[in-house]
């Protein structure tokens, strides 16, 4: 007996109109609004996972794993600032605003970073006294919105970061929806409570690199040339943006790839604008080298950094330090499986929760609700972050020693190979087992 021949073709899903695309069309039709969410891009992109370290061999000599020194310190802002920052690990905490994050989360970031001798950064909402107090080294952001900007905080900061763009939304402004504009957040931003707050995408008082040069000069004058001045850009045209930031007088440039997290951005923006960090580092380093500024103007990269291997790879490609956002929040307690029931009640699940813009975060991190925020213990969460930063640093050291390097900064592109043709072309390292770097001349 043979099986009956089907009279109809079985249902077939379209690769183009896949489940997600269809659901999005239906959602858009029902609501009339684009999707807004937090976190970074969720699609698969060429990333650090596509690179491998070669390690020592007959021709290279490794360092003894536990005993031989492999330094991790980094000095940021050596070009013009009278007081450069000395950090013990090249892993810094990226700018995330009070407003997007609860006061408790900001304090926890400060505690964790301080315990590990690294810096944390304010965000699009000004500096809170709690974060200044809990952070030994605090970078103060100057953003297009200028919320909370004031010269006293500028002078209290250890460095100033002029934000031109962010990897999650290069060319876009900030967004904080009404439900997160509590009385305190509203007061810090000089805005009414409860309204959707759209922050500008362009700086109000300068346009273009010539103006930026003068703006930097003003900030230096106000702070008496003491503080390092960073310029942060989203990864789009890294060669030119980094060259122009250097030309404008930056001490440090921050390059944020499209994987970079955000507190609230349109999904279409997160997924379709900008380039992956893997593709951005080499052109940025090239710009620094062409200007004879590599290691003189320090490069901090971010966007999807998760483990010590990512850190080591970013440094090997030429960065001086990295910054983490999403991973730091996860270390504090974001997307904890223990909260599964609550994530489900919000229509999500642990590991996927990204509605950071709604202010209903059961972990108490991306919220302004006092009850939810009180769930996060800044001391314990700070400790978790410190643990995580220690692991990132140690993991990077393990790799560096295996490559025979006595400092993380001695890692170099020669230590790397690529697993895919795309990543070989983007990172400008050979495809594993070959000497082929696609696109190299």
């Amino acid at each position, binding site marked *: 007996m043979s099986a009956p021949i089907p009279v109809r073709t079985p249902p077939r899903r379209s690769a183009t109109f896949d489940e997600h695309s269809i659901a999005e069309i239906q959602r858009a039709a029902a609501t009339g609004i684009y999707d807004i969410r937090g976190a970074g891009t969720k699609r698969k992109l060429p990333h650090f996972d596509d690179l491998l370290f070669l390690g020592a061999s007959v021709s290279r000599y490794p360092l003894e794993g536990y005993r031989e020194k492999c330094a991790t310190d980094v000095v940021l802002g050596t070009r013009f600032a009278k007081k450069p920052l000395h950090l013990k690990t090249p892993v810094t905490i990226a700018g995330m605003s009070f407003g997007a994050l609860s006061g408790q989360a900001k304090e926890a970031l400060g505690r964790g970073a301080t315990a590990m001798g690294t810096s944390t950064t304010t965000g699009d909402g000004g500096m809170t006294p709690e974060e200044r107090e809990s952070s030994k080294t605090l970078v103060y952001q100057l953003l297009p919105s200028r919320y909370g900007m004031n010269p*006293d905080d500028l002078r209290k900061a250890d460095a100033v970061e002029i934000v031109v763009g962010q990897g999650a939304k290069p060319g876009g402004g900030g967004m904080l929806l009404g439900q997160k504009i509590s009385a305190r957040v509203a007061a810090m931003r*000089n805005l009414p409570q409860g*309204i959707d707050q759209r922050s500008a995408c362009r700086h109000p008082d300068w346009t273009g690199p010539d103006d930026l040069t003068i703006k930097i000069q003003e900030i230096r*004058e106000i702070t008496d040339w003491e503080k390092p001045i960073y310029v942060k850009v989203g990864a789009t045209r890294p060669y030119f943006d980094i060259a122009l930031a250097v030309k404008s007088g930056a001490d440090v440039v921050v390059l944020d790839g499209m994987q970079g997290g955000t507190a609230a951005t349109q999904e279409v923006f997160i997924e379709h604008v900008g380039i992956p960090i893997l593709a951005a580092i080499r052109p940025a380093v090239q710009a620094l080298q062409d200007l004879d500024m590599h290691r003189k103007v320090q490069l901090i990269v971010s966007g999807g950094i998760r483990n010590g291997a990512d850190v080591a790879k970013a440094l090997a490609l030429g960065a001086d330090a990295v910054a983490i956002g999403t991973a730091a929040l996860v270390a504090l307690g974001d997307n904890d499986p223990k909260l599964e029931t609550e994530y489900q009640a919000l229509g999500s699940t642990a590991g996927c929760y990204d509605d950071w813009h709604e202010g209903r975060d059961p972990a108490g991190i991306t919220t302004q609700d006092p009850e939810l925020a009180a769930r996060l213990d800044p001391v314990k969460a700070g400790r978790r972050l410190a643990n995580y930063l220690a692991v990132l640093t140690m993991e990077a050291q393990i790799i560096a020693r295996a490559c025979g390097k006595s400092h993380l900064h001695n890692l170099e592109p020669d230590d790397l190979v690529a697993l895919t043709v795309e990543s070989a072309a983007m990172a400008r390292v050979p495809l594993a087992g070959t000497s082929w770097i696609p696109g190299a001349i």
Partner: protein
Amino acid sequence: MITVDLAETSVRDLNQRLHKLPKDTNERAWRVVNPKGAHALVAGLDAPIEVTIDGHPGYYCAGMNKEATVIVNGHCGVGLAENMMSGEVRVKGNASDAAGATGRGGLLVVEGDAGLRCGISMKGIDIVVAGSVGHMSAFMAQTGSLVVCGDVGSSFGDSIYEARLYVQGKVESLGADCIEKKMTPHHLAKLEKLLKRAGIEADARRFRRYGSARRLYNFHVDNVDAY
């Protein structure tokens, strides 16, 4: 009166000297000559002193000013008194673009005209312009007052929040969510007081008032054209 000649002293030295002054300093009266377009002149002041500048400063003159009074006998470059916190800045001539941008307090008086984006993103500052202002003025203006005795360029008050705008002359066009509002006795009294404080002679009753329609405060799909 202490006179500093920028033909002989650098802006850096001048600013440093002014920043070091204690709040209760006796050295309260300063005069700066030969600015010749220098940028960031007297930026970051933080004491109740009075500085008179004879000549034309460049960008960001009196940037982030706190407490000090700065008088400019000349024209100013971009970003005059940007992010001012308190005190008073007065320009006898014209000001370029972004005058008073993001200012959070104090009084800025421009006796001539101001360029584009005057009062952009203002957050509490009071700005009085005796002449006219350019395109995109009071863009995303949050709080504070902008008074223009002359005319205003296009897209005035685009995406405005709670700032109060008063114009005596013509408004080329209003930006998204900015509307003309009724001049109540309360607003008239405020405007009269502000003109007086600024030392600008004008009849408050001849001004019109503009502000936010508050229609874009929370996203709604039917307003999509306005975003």
